[in-house]
């Protein structure tokens, strides 16, 4: 019951291809956990299974003990998982501010009638959304960009905006899919600070990352995937000394 996320024996097949084979994984509140592995290891597939984009062929996914395996993406978001995407997916024609406010969808209750009649609830929620967006944008250092269109932002800022939007859903678990991809050293460093700050705020984070330094520095535990199988898990130190991991992944990099 204490795990925010528990993945039990998940297998995902696409036709004859086995993308994930019998994956077990858990995260406790307040942890930062990393998933690493070579390209095509099934990391993003696992994210897609957890967030309901795919439904696993076998196995179960639990959120605080509740079975969410058959939930659709929007239900999972409502239940408390928020994610970012490897290939950034922002709402390009909306402003930075509106991207974040859109993220508050499930926290707000304004319905069609409220919208048309401009009820008190609509006005109150509108004000609250502005205030909450302000604090999130300042947190992610995007306040100066708030009136730009999301599509006009520089790359690093877009990545941060995706995180801000995910945070706006008030998630129990934040899933980051290669948050540092394509960032330069300076940007990666800033991102690390931000992620650590999120942890301080009590957030639980699961992240996929290729940047080994980033993962090793930030994560408390790491899972290593290769060819859809879990080949190792443990602290960064344990994992980096694991023979199977060195062969499969770190060995290639050296």
């Amino acid at each position, binding site marked *: 019951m204490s795990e925010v996320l528990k993945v039990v024996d998940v297998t995902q097949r696409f036709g004859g291809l086995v993308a994930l084979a019998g994956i077990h994984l858990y995260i406790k509140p307040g942890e930062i956990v990393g998933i690493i592995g070579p390209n095509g290891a099934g990391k993003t597939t696992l994210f897609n299974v957890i967030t309901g984009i795919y439904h696993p062929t076998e196995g179960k996914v639990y959120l605080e003990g509740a079975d969410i395996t058959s939930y659709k993406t929007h239900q999972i978001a409502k239940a408390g998982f928020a994610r970012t995407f490897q290939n950034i997916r922002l709402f390009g024609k909306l402003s930075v501010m509106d991207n974040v406010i859109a993220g508050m969808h499930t926290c707000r209750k304004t319905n*069609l009638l409220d919208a048309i009649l401009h009820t008190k609830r609509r006005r109150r929620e509108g004000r609250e959304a502005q205030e909450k967006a302000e604090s999130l944008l300042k947190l992610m250092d995007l306040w100066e960009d708030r009136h730009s269109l999301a599509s006009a932002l520089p790359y690093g800022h877009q990545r941060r905006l995706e995180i801000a939007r995910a945070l706006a859903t008030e998630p129990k678990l934040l899933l980051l899919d290669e948050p540092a991809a394509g960032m330069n050293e300076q940007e990666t460093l800033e991102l690390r600070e931000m992620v650590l700050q999120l942890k301080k705020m009590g957030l639980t984070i699961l992240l996929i990352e290729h940047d080994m330094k980033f993962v090793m520095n930030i994560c408390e535990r790491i899972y290593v995937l290769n060819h859809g199988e879990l080949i190792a898990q443990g602290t960064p130190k344990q994992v980096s000394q694991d023979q199977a991991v060195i062969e499969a992944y770190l060995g290639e990099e050296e």
Partner: protein
Amino acid sequence: MNKIFEFCARNTWKLLGTLLVLLAVFPFVFTSSYILRIAITVLMFIVLSLSLNLLIGYLGQMSMGHAAFWGIGAYTAAILSTKLNVSSLGTFLAAMLVAGVFGLLLGLPVLKLKGYYLTVVTLGFCEIIRLVELNWMDLTRGSLGIAGIPPLNFFGKAFKSSRSVYFIALLLVIFTVYLVHSIINSRIGLAIMAIRDDDVAAASIGIHVFVYKVMVFIIAGMLAGLAGAFYAHYISFIDPSGFTTGQSMELVILAIFGGLGSIPGAILGATILTVLPETMRALMEYRGMIYGIIIVVMMLVKPDGLLGRVNFKYIRQRLSAEKAKKQEGKSHE
């Protein structure tokens, strides 16, 4: 150009007030029934263009069947008023209801289809509706059409003069603008535009994509149905040839020409493209060609339409932020 947009954004309320006064005075200055007829047509097409804009501009779903909703509204109003003597308030509401139900039906395939595939469905939908109008003789009188549709009448009072019809059309436009504006600038509108920009990301933040898509189909259908009911009473004769896929294309052109996802754009597009052919009457057969050339050139020069890239809300927010910053700077000195 940016200066003009900034000016508009800064003085929205003043401009809107002025525009409303001008529109209210218009039928007293121009009393010729010819000009009023064009004005009424413009107003009706504004409603259609705005409702289609909900689908194409805000939801991002190209629809080539919008004239079907217009026709459904027109036929509902025509049948109810000729056979059952229902007053215009009743026919307007019924037209919205029936068109809304068809909007729901057309929206349901959204569960399985999106993008171009759904566009093909809308195309087929328009054709099906036209064929039903053409062949259900008992109800629609087929290609003979329905004649003698009574003029608009509300609360026992008939509105026959062009001027009074003009004001009813104006009220419909105000109603539509208010409705679309209210929805778009709310949580609902944000969800709709989020789906347009990226439906996977929209679902990932908890937006029920299916529900919102169907909702837009229903609202767009209802508004087009309303325009249809108005049209039937105004023109007094309707037949299936008015509600074809060709007519749907015309509506798509209005929406794109004005600028997708822009309320002023939809209004401007409908106005220009309705008035333009009338001003070229003297050119006779060249009219269609010039109309076509204007659209082609427009798309080459400004593919987003007149106001497709202009978001007055964002300009206003940016301006007020700049102003606040300036004041802050001054107080520091």
